[in-house]
């Protein structure tokens, strides 16, 4: 049964492959776990096409040193058992690296990845202490962890207040009440002590569709100078609406990376959300050469560019995601030749430096110790119906992050 299906599948793939040029080089498989129908299906269907399109572009331009990269996507519905099953399937297909999807799935696969020596990337999710490459050798956050996002958000609001000649007295932290949501708490507490502001936290329990009491508390009783939000799913847009409703100025609200997409603002209404600030770990919009090349690739094929591109926050993150994998493979091939395995690609990741794709990717520098690549973010703001950039790439308080890493 399985075999005949696999044969059918192989035949289909062969047909698809027949259309593209014949490859002299070797084929390198990369696994991609995606969620297109589960609880994060407002993200997956826009994130994963970005990864596919970037790899397609790379292959079109001759692959990685003449070797074709094949992305094997399996939908895991945000479920741990399916993540495990699909990982075994991908391993059988000989993947050299894996794009992980979702925090619980990342946790569950971390021990397996380490045993099998296959590097996995978890940009913007997973655990913050995976930054420490000596402790988690085969997990790469590659983008700013929640800890780095916390330090960056605080630095941003302190700088802004200074510019306006004000002092920061009170900061509210509105977070989704799950492990990922609570992860930045210790860092924020340390920052509050050091910078001398009062921090109060407001938990939003899953599923996060109702938070009027917490927001009333923020807007009516606590009245902070700034609000930092760290929400998932549909709750970011609810927070925008609720904060607006109690009359809190949205240009003093800074969201972490999963509450700063087009769809979050769309659901709340662009006019309502005017001024809302968000952290980004990849560039937003289509003014990047690599995005234009993808558009051109589609146009050359006589097709319209994919509609997922309009959701540039997630799409571009997908491009970044694939780009670091391609870069790691390139580094690995350069050093070890075309017969690479997971452990070689791991070293390839640790050599990534200066891949910016014209500003879409931050100046990452991944080392054997730092698997996060620095923890860079940009701050963007909703202005006139689109996200506009406020700051360039920056990172903050490396000492606090180092200390937290050492302690964990």
């Amino acid at each position, binding site marked *: 049964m399985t075999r005949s*299906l696999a044969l059918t*599948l192989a035949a*289909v793939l062969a047909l*698809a492959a027949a259309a593209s040029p014949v490859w002299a080089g070797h084929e390198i498989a990369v696994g991609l776990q995606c969620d*297109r129908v589960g609880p994060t299906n407002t993200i997956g269907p826009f994130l994963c096409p970005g990864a596919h399109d970037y790899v397609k572009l790379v292959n079109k331009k001759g692959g990685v040193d003449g070797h074709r990269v094949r992305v094997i996507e399996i939908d895991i519905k945000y479920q741990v058992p399916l993540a495990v099953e699909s990982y075994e399937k991908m*391993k*059988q297909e000989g993947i050299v690296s894996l794009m992980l999807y979702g925090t619980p799935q990342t946790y569950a696969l*971390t021990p397996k990845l380490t045993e099998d020596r296959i590097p996995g990337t978890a940009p913007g999710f997973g655990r913050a202490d995976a930054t420490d490459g000596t402790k988690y050798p085969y997990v790469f956050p590659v983008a700013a962890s929640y800890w780095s996002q916390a330090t960056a958000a605080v630095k941003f609001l302190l700088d802004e207040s200074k510019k306006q000649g004000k002092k920061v007295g009170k900061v509210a932290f509105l977070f989704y009440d799950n492990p990922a949501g609570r992860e930045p708490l210790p860092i924020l507490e340390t920052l509050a002590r050091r910078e001398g502001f009062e921090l109060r936290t407001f938990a939003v329990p899953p599923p996060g569709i109702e938070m009027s009491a917490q927001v009333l508390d923020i807007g009516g009783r606590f009245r902070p100078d700034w609000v930092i939000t760290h929400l998932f799913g549909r709750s970011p847009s609810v927070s925008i609406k609720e904060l607006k409703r109690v009359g809190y100025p949205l240009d003093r609200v800074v969201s972490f990376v999963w509450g700063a997409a087009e769809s979050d603002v769309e659901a709340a209404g662009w006019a309502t959300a005017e001024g809302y600030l968000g952290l980004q770990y990849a560039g937003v919009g289509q003014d990047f050469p690599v995005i234009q090349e993808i558009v051109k690739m589609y146009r050359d094929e006589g097709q319209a560019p994919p509609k997922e591109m309009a959701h540039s926050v997630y799409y571009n993150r997908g491009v970044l995601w694939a780009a670091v994998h391609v870069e790691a493979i390139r580094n690995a091939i350069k050093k070890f030749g075309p017969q690479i395995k997971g452990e070689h690609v791991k070293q390839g990741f640790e050599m990534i430096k200066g891949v910016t794709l014209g500003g879409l990717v931050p100046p990452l520098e991944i080392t054997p110790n730092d698997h996060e690549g620095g923890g860079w973010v940009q701050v963007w703001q909703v202005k006139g119906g689109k996200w506009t950039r406020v700051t360039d790439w920056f990172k903050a308080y490396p000492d606090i992050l180092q200390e937290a890493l050492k302690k964990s």
Partner: protein
Amino acid sequence: MIHRECGVLKTSYAADMALYPVPLARWTVGAIAAAAFGVFPLLAGDYLLSIANLAAIAVVGAIGLNILTGYTGQISLGHGAFMSVGAYTAAILATRAGLPVWVCLPAGGAMAALVGMIVGSPSLRIKGLYLAIATLAGQFVIEWTINHVTWISGGVQASIYVPRPALGGLLIQSQREMYYFIMTVAALGVVAALNLFRTRAGRAFIAIRDHDVAAEIIGIHIFRYKLLAFAISSFYAGVTGVLYTYYLGIANYEQFTIVTSIDFLAMIIIGGLGSILGSIFGAVFLTLLPIVLRYVVEGIGGLFFTIPDVLNLITNVQLILFGALIVFFLVVEPEGLNKLWRNIKDYFRVWPFAY
């Protein structure tokens, strides 16, 4: 199981309760055991073994829930949480006390049994769907507790890495070793459950399910046996959680949510309530369904669509098919796969000389 029971006439209660109704049954069970422990793990690769492992773990959980829901008639929506209780108990014992797997496994089950009894205690007063919702409350309270008490969860990330289990000097690490370990536990679970319903307690459970008031009148202490059912059922759930923990190498409550509870309920309803074989069918069926559907839809979809379109399409079609299949099975056979299996067996009972 697979043997045919043609011409078997039972003349005593002892014969009716026998585990092996005909001598041939011993041989079929032996053959299945030999296939499961001897042939399959040697022939199958890591991928097939990983699916088998996930299915075997699900079997343990499904049997546990079936003891409570199928045999005792108490619906529980809290089994996901009981699994996480087992998972964290084992993880804490394994990492902080350094205890070996053969201690952690029953300890996780025992802890879950205790919590299950507490959650099940409202069953004294309430029953049916109201009880189902009371156990749902248990689910949320347990989730919240694990999430917020860092002593249990081991920090804000609420996940504890556990070392690979070792039996004696043997480290259980590869999928094949895991398979032997999980299958042994699952087989013990199946045998224990089969025997449970040959005892006084097991028959009391069934009596309570069939008519609680009548059961009380014939001298069954309802509350005690309901709690016992919760305890045994949660013990299985706890063991399931421990197995997941050792299999994945991590305890993380986010994989034991209300969705898990509903999934397991789906397994036993599709498999067949009040049937051990049904629990096995249901668990295997629901574990394999998304995987098989993926192959089918990819196979068919690939012929008509370019690859990027397929990815978005197939996933949604899969989900729809998943729901449609559940509905289809319920409409065709509301008593589950087990009944379907019995129907097939009944048809072949006197085959080929049917009258």
